[in-house]
């Protein structure tokens, strides 16, 4: 046990510091991806609700494809495909050899594109929960599109979508472990390195699992608090 504590200590022989930094990297890449996903999801939902036939079909095809393909393949596409594109671009400017995209960017973009597809569905569901009368009432008060969106639609969508969005955050966080295959030193990659050099994979993967669990748990509590806050003043029939 003292042996184990030494392994994860923050001293020069311990892995504590690296693991803590790696956990921050996990948080950074997951939240960047999640934020990209929010934007993509919002645009997709907008397209599916208010777009013309072409836009609607395009957005629907995107969500179907992204939700039907393994995340790992999407990450491969972004990492290797991105590197290929960058290499070609640089070579056309006369720079020889291979240029890789930063794994952080490729990973965050992949998570963003995947979680965007799921977030679009959540937003769309939340929009459906909006009563059409509210939008009509807004219109009859002379509100125009942007004002209507800002004052009537967005606040209510945010409230209805919050639980679903919380689930997608958890998904994005857990997906971020897959980015370890690109070599980005996030929590899982760092645990792999530690496990390899100490030959104690069981302990290190267990520690990694514990850190992931802590992050999901704490952020879940945060989302629950936000949900409660968003429900202030909402009359509910349930006891």
């Amino acid at each position, binding site marked *: 046990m003292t042996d184990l504590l030494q392994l994860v200590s923050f001293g020069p022989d311990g892995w504590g510091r690296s693991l803590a930094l790696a956990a921050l990297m996990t948080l950074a890449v997951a939240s960047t991806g999640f934020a990209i996903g929010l934007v993509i999801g919002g645009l997709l939902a907008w397209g599916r609700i208010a777009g013309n036939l072409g836009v609607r079909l395009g957005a629907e095809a995107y969500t179907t*494809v992204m939700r039907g393909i393994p995340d*790992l393949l999407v990450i491969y596409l972004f990492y290797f*495909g991105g590197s290929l594109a960058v290499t070609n671009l640089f070579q056309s400017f006369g720079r020889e050899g291979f240029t890789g995209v930063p794994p952080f960017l490729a990973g965050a973009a992949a998570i963003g594109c995947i979680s965007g597809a799921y977030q679009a569905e959540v937003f769309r569901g939340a929009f459906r929960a909006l009563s059409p009368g509210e939008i009509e009432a807004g219109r009859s008060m002379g509100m125009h599109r942007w004002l209507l969106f800002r004052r009537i639609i967005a606040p209510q969508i945010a409230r209805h979508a919050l639980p679903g969005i919380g689930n997608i955050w958890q998904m994005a966080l*857990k997906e971020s*472990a897959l980015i*370890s295959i690109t070599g980005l030193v996030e929590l899982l990659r760092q645990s792999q390195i530690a496990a390899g050099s100490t030959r104690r*994979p069981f302990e290190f993967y267990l520690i990694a699992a514990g850190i992931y669990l802590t992050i999901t748990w704490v952020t879940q509590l945060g989302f629950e608090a936000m949900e409660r806050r968003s429900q202030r003043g909402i009359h509910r029939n349930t006891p």
Partner: protein
Amino acid sequence: MDIAFLTESFLKLLSGLPLTLELTFFAFVIGALLALLLALMRDAPLWPLRAFVRTFVFVMRGTPLLVQIFLIYYGLGQFRPFLQDLGLWSVFREPYWCAIMALALNSATYGSEILRGALGSVPPNEIEAARACGMSGVLLYRRIVLPIALRQALPSYGNELILMVKATSLASIITMMDVTGVAARLIAESYRPVEVFIAAGVIYLAINLTLSRAIAVVDWWLSPHLRRATPKQAVPHG
């Protein structure tokens, strides 16, 4: 875009299809049985059982599947002599079984929550009526509770099956040559990720669309009471 290379990769990727389907099938079936067990334990009268299931579900849902796979495949390798004594090493040595185990346990926790919700949605008066007819225990579950609950759970469990198909791709990281494993090898060999991605994506989409159609058919078949009556069946009352 190179169509010849695209078809070539597609054919090569098909060689990984049996493994993907096999992993999905075994992990799903084992996972579903465990899920039912967990769901029943979750509401068992013994509190240690309930606490165990709650903790287990919390831990499995809060950690990435890849970490769970690594923990079982690489982590348990640390206890090789012990596992050899138990005669279990031949199981834990194989990435195939480790992947199935991790996928099944993972799916069991998500499935148990779905089934718990479905079990809770069984109307109490149905159970009361069954008890009044003298059914109890296994008979009550077999005839009344499970059929109603499973029908209720089917749409969500269908989603779980699709997630399982996608999750099997993680087995490729522990050296399994499923569709994603072959795709990773092809990308490394040819360095043409876009074509390989499209070919592999088509295979996964085909599996998932087939499965979701199949689930819709089963759902339709299991819920005759929700179908709109055709004019021939609609007999006016009175």
